[in-house]
């Protein structure tokens, strides 16, 4: 390469603009290994397991009133599929950037739909969030910014949905801050869910994806309510103090009810001191014990 060519390359490089340099490529098919929270992100959590959830009284009461048949109600059939489902569902994600055809700039990052979960469109063009009275949807409305090499997204305007797939709910006032962090072949996603209606403090979870050996296609349509046989006008539920699954965590793992019912303190180390004298480990694992295949 001649000196002139080097200079030209240097000039071109400088013209590229530094904001673009802060952006890294997140696109691709990303598989979830589910090595952590394997049951929760796989077959689904145990009923009555609200450990670590910073519930307030309303959030706990709502969760304890939950009966599985609720998800057959036309009004709630899609409640699994808020954007939070990306964090607690079992599947990988397909991610790509949408570019402006003229400028070539990234207008949005998209996480493709999966079956009933709608696509997550992270608008990168500086548009504002809708007003407070704007309609809500399962996927909500999301904007994003680059913070160094971390893509940070903020989601509002979601419909009520599930925080955990055993009846722990989020309200339509919930918001999610999601960070996408790439380290080589690892994509770590960290998400903070805030909900003034059901939580006393944010709920925070993290998960890591790896490149999928096969293409993950963005498939399906947003969830469409249908008739699954729940009679109109009925809401399957348990009345207060009548949830028969409340003792599941004690039965399976000897986890005290005080812990199973959640609350912010259950996520902090000091809580161990509180339950230490109430706990004796079960002699052996009885269910969902096998290592990952």
């Amino acid at each position, binding site marked *: 390469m001649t000196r002139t060519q080097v200079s030209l390359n240097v000039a071109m490089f400088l013209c590229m603009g530094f904001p673009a340099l802060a952006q890294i490529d997140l696109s691709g098919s990303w598989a979830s290994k589910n090595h952590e929270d394997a049951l929760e992100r796989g077959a689904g959590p145990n009923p009555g397991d609200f450990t670590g959830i910073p519930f307030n009284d309303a959030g706990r009461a709502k969760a304890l009133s939950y009966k599985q048949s609720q998800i057959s109600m036309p009004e709630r059939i899609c409640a699994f599929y808020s954007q939070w489902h990306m964090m607690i569902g079992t599947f990988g994600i397909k991610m790509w950037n949408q570019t402006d055809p003229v400028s070539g700039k990234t207008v949005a990052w998209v996480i493709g739909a999966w079956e009933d979960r709608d696509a997550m469109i992270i608008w990168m063009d500086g548009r504002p969030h809708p007003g407070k009275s704007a309609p809500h949807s399962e996927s909500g409305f999301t904007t994003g910014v680059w913070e160094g090499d971390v893509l940070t997204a903020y989601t509002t305007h979601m419909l009520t949905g599930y925080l955990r797939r055993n009846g722990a709910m989020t309200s339509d006032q919930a918001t999610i801050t999601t960070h996408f962090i790439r380290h080589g072949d690892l994509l770590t996603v960290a998400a903070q869910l805030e909900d003034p209606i059901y939580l006393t403090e944010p709920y925070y979870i993290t998960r*890591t994806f790896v490149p999928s050996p096969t293409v993950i296609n963005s498939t399906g349509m947003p969830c469409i309510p249908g008739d699954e046989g729940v009679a109109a006008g009925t809401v399957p539920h348990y009345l207060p103090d009548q949830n028969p699954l409340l003792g599941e965590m004690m039965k399976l793992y000897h986890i005290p009810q005080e812990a199973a019912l959640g609350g912010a303190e259950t996520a902090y180390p000091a809580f161990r001191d509180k339950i230490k004298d109430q706990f004796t480990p079960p002699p052996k694992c009885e269910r969902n014990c096998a290592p990952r295949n």
Partner: protein
Amino acid sequence: MALAFPLLAQAQGGRGGAPAPPPANPKAGAPIDLTGYWVSIVDEDWRFRMVMPPKGDYEGVPMNPAAVKFADGWDPAKDEASGDLCKAYGAPAILRQPEHLHITWQDDRTLRMDADTGTQTRVFHFAEWKAPGGPPTLQGDSVAQWETARPARGSPPHGSLKVVTSHLKAGYLRKNGVPYSENADLTEYYDVLKEHNGDTMLVVTIVVTDPQYLKEPFIITSHFKKQDGDAGWKPTPCTVKW
């Protein structure tokens, strides 16, 4: 791309200014501040972390048959009798414990992480550090490097800490005897994130590889919230039964 970094350094020097000099040492060049007190938020794998998991509960870990056989023979009384109480507090597992962390600069090239649970200390060595040799240890030999993002003009520096740990004494990935061997290696990425509500979070992506006991790398992510001070800091000894 080999040209990129000198050019960036020049550009960041400002209009017509001299190139920014390279940082004097890893402490001076830190793109993120990991120092201070952090508390773990245990809302994932709760039953494996906050209480003692039952024998035979291996869910989620990509164990091979040799690992299952080993763990099936786990006997905490034996560990206790032998005085080997800290097997679940080694580097591959320590960040899964419910705990407080205290991170400080030991010197300009060495970052130190103290965990109150099990009263453990990890030391992250930057630059051209040479391991001292000797027998493998619970916390192993950790080599650290900054992974610095190329920031937008005018933006503060940003990046991550990558730590690679080897020369590990065998231990447990979980308290109920899920093993890792002396052949295990650990790679971690430390990211500091500012949250919408003002919290500062430390997110650590953890990858354990072990040809002896794992069918594939064991990949998990732990998160911690920054504290204003040392509230809750409570050094405790290792235990095999709680």
